[in-house]
């Protein structure tokens, strides 16, 4: 309990920090521009690769195969490097690797080291260590050099200095060189070329990271666009290759396949300017040495972990960040430890332990947008949940909140009380909690809860219907009108309905890492489900949670979203109702990305006469609600929502329809705060109104 209180006390500070971050216009604009360009470039370039999903399958198998055999493959690489006159060192942890490289440099009598971009070196905090030995370390990638001279951290994996304007960059170099540098990217680049050229030529040691290592022909593959990597690797007398254990693949063909997908998926580039392949010491002048340092630092342990093992496939293309709503909102300084984004949470856990990763994991909304672009098929949201599961001493407040919410009696009393004492619309919460209502309105829960009402209407538990309705906690206690509308709708359509005894689906428990509670709720719900009838959902999150019960095996009844079920019933017929309005649909993350239901809601809406469907990529963006997330990190949630609200406003949408009560709470709250003339309603409500054609009343109000 003390932990919970301590965490609650910390929230307002965290909120203020996040508020500052999301209100930083330069960073936001820079990120937005970069992410949009990369995502568009990716979409255009992806066509040349054929079916993306086939690639994902192929890449996943290829990389899993290699990781499975990684010890044997590395043995082969070691043997080859050594037989060709190089040295090979497997460093068990960051310290061992740092010390080894430091010693190499000292033995070579080096005072200057040039370095290509290497996140592995950042992971082991190499630069400060080498500096402490009196070695000058010069980053040679332009973005990394800017960051190094500015004394900052990268904010993006591909464009590390994306958060800096050209004026700021010019100031950084002016200060470093003690003369005025013009704020022109072309001129700055040429000046940097001149400056670093001397460093390349004078350095004793050149170090680079590596993208891929092949084992059949033992070879190290290094990709850059600027050409700094190959200069680091070929000009100084001592070449150091630093690579993580996970970079291994079986064959050179596999390595080439990775370079077919990497630049395309990363920034929409067909092929990078330079791909340099090294197989041994390149002795173009006397005395050249090659040293290979392979870093373990938790990787081999991760191979044994069923979750983190999946993260080892990562090829660091950064596509997951380019589409991540949280990353786009707060950037890589906030949403990172050393590794950025959701995948960064998993990687930080692997290399620095889950405690260090917990804060980053906590920022993820679990929307799953990353799942659609990861070429290696890494289930990032599950890995984030796993991080939270491992760290029991943090996230106590959110676990406590979920434990309370999962107690139905308690939730019933609390929402019942709130519905009696709270105003209809809560526009301002008192104290620090006021941040929650800063950009959204909260509605008071409605009465009565669904189950008592349904029983009073003669619906029976596990009997009498062709389909079982699962309402879910939010519908039951906050928006019971949605379930009442669903009952009315199905009754009108002649579909007999039954209900079931329910517990919380457990998904909120799982996303805060409370696997004990998740399993407990799973077992209960499984026991309550009538096995012989389809299960119908009004909440995409519940459906996704219950869908995942199937992962452990055992039969579940067929699961249906309302739109799926009704479309199946309608066959090819139009929906028997009409609605004259500009209607948009919001795809709940769980519906679209976790369950893969992408077509049915729009198809159903288009079957309603009079509907003018407004489509756009904004329909698919996460709303930022994510259950408790909007209460945990209100500034981030509100910023994520903005794009959707802008879209609704610009497109003059009359009605936004969706299939998740949590999304409704978030979007409606934002719509009302902004005073937009948009009704945000559940699919069930919309269809019922279309059925009874009472929508004209809406138009008047």
């Amino acid at each position, binding site marked *: 309990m003390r932990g919970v209180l301590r965490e609650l006390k910390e929230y307002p500070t965290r909120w203020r920090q996040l508020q500052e971050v999301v209100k930083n216009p330069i960073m936001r604009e820079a990120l937005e521009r970069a992410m949009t360009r990369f995502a568009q470039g990716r979409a255009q370039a992806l066509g040349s690769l054929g079916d993306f999903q086939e690639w994902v399958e192929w890449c996943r198998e290829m990389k899993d195969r290699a990781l499975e055999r990684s010890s044997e493959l590395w043995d082969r690489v070691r043997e080859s490097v050594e037989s060709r006159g190089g040295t090979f060192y497997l460093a068990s942890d960051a310290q061992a690797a740092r010390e080894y490289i430091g010693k190499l440099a000292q033995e070579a009598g080096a005072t200057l080291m040039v370095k290509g971009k290497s996140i592995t070196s950042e992971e082991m905090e190499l630069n400060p260590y080498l500096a402490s030995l009196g070695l000058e370390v010069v980053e040679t990638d332009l973005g990394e050099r800017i960051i190094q001279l500015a004394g900052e951290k990268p904010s993006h994996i591909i*464009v590390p200095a994306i958060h800096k*304007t050209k004026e700021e960059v010019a100031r950084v170099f002016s200060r470093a060189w003690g003369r005025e540098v013009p704020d022109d990217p072309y001129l700055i680049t040429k000046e940097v070329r001149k400056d670093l050229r001397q460093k390349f030529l004078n350095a004793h040691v050149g170090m680079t990271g590596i993208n891929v290592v092949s084992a059949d022909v033992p070879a190290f593959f290094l990709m850059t*666009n600027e*050409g700094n990597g190959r200069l680091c690797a070929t000009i100084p007398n001592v070449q150091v290759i630093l690579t993580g254990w996970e970079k291994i693949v079986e064959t050179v*063909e596999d390595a080439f396949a990775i370079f077919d997908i990497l630049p395309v998926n990363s920034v929409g580039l*067909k092929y990078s300017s*330079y791909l340099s392949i090294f*197989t041994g010491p390149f*002795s173009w002048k006397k005395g050249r040495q090659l040293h290979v340092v392979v870093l373990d630092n938790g990787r081999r342990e991760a191979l044994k972990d069923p979750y983190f093992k999946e993260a080892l496939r990562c090829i660091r293309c950064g596509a997951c960040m380019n589409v991540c709503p949280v990353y786009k909102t707060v950037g890589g300084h906030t949403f990172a430890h050393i590794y950025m984004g959701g995948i960064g949470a998993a990687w930080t856990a692997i290399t620095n332990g889950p405690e260090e990763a917990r804060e980053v994991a906590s920022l993820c909304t679990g929307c799953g947008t990353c799942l659609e672009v990861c070429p290696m098929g890494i289930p990032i949201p599950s890995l984030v949940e796993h991080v939270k599961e491992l760290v029991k001493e943090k996230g106590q407040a959110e676990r406590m909140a979920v434990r309370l919410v999962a107690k139905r009696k308690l939730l019933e009393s609390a929402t019942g009380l709130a519905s009696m004492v709270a105003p209809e619309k809560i526009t301002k919460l008192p104290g620090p909690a006021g941040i929650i209502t800063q950009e959204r309105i909260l509605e008071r829960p409605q009465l009565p809860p669904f189950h008592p009402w349904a029983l009073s209407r003669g619906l029976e538990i596990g009997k009498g219907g062709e389909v079982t309705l699962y309402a879910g906690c939010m519908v039951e206690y906050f928006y019971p009108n949605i379930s009442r509308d669903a009952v009315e709708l199905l009754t009108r359509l002649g579909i007999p309905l039954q209900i079931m005894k329910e517990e919380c689906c457990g998904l909120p428990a799982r996303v805060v890492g409370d696997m004990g509670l998740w399993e407990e709720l799973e077992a209960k719900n499984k026991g309550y489900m009538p096995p012989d009838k389809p299960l119908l959902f009004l909440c995409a999150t519940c459906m996704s949670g219950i869908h995942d019960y199937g992962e452990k095996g055992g039969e579940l009844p067929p699961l249906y979203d309302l739109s799926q079920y009704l479309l199946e019933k309608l066959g090819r017929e139009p929906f028997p109702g009409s609605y004259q309005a500009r209607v948009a649909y919001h795809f709940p993350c769980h519906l679209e990305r976790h369950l893969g239901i992408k077509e049915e809601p729009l198809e159903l809406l288009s079957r309603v006469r009079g509907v003018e469907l407004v489509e756009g990529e904004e329909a698919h963006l996460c709303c930022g609600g994510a259950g408790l997330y909007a209460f945990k990190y209100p500034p981030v949630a509100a910023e994520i929502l903005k794009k959707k609200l802008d879209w609704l406003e610009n497109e003059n949408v009359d009605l936004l329809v969706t299939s998740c009560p949590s999304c409704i709470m978030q979007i409606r709250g934002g719509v009302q705060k902004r005073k937009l003339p948009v009704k945000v309603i559940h699919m069930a409500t919309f269809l019922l109104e279309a059925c009874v054609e009472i929508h004209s009343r809406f138009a008047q109000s």
Partner: protein
Amino acid sequence: MSEITTDSSANPLLSLFLENFEAAGGVILYPQKGESIQKALTHMVKAEGVRYFAISSDVPNFNMVSRLLEGLGLERPQRYQALDLGITRAHGAGASTGTLVFVFSEGRDHLLTSLPRVHLAVLRREDLHENVSHATISFLKDPEGPPPYVSLVTGPSRTGDIELTHVTGVHGPEKLYLVVVS
């Protein structure tokens, strides 16, 4: 150097390669309609303001090119740093990405590809493959053992690190020229 046709429809692989090479930011010096290699080279070194050049002895028709450039008043520099133009042979190429393959075992040819502002690559048409992987793997799987360093080049050196503004010639060549011979 024997002339090769500029009619790309006669060789779909070559035309695909040239298209992708240009798309990546490379400049095709030859074959170009109505211009001899000599003329194209002359135009290029003037336009680029080349003073110091170096050429690899590996380049097909090494003597002809050397004499031509010397005749134009170009000099060999004392130090590699002063190089404006490096001329080397590309040992292979991949059409689908417009990529050139350079294979290095010893000697200083690699410096001609990485240090100067302008790099001119000479490719024999028979070294062109559909994919760069095919063009490269045969070198890596050489029964005599793989070369220590293989460098694949697709267009000039580039960056977008400052406000995503596209700038070429960061640490590698700002211009990449190509001559294809048969």
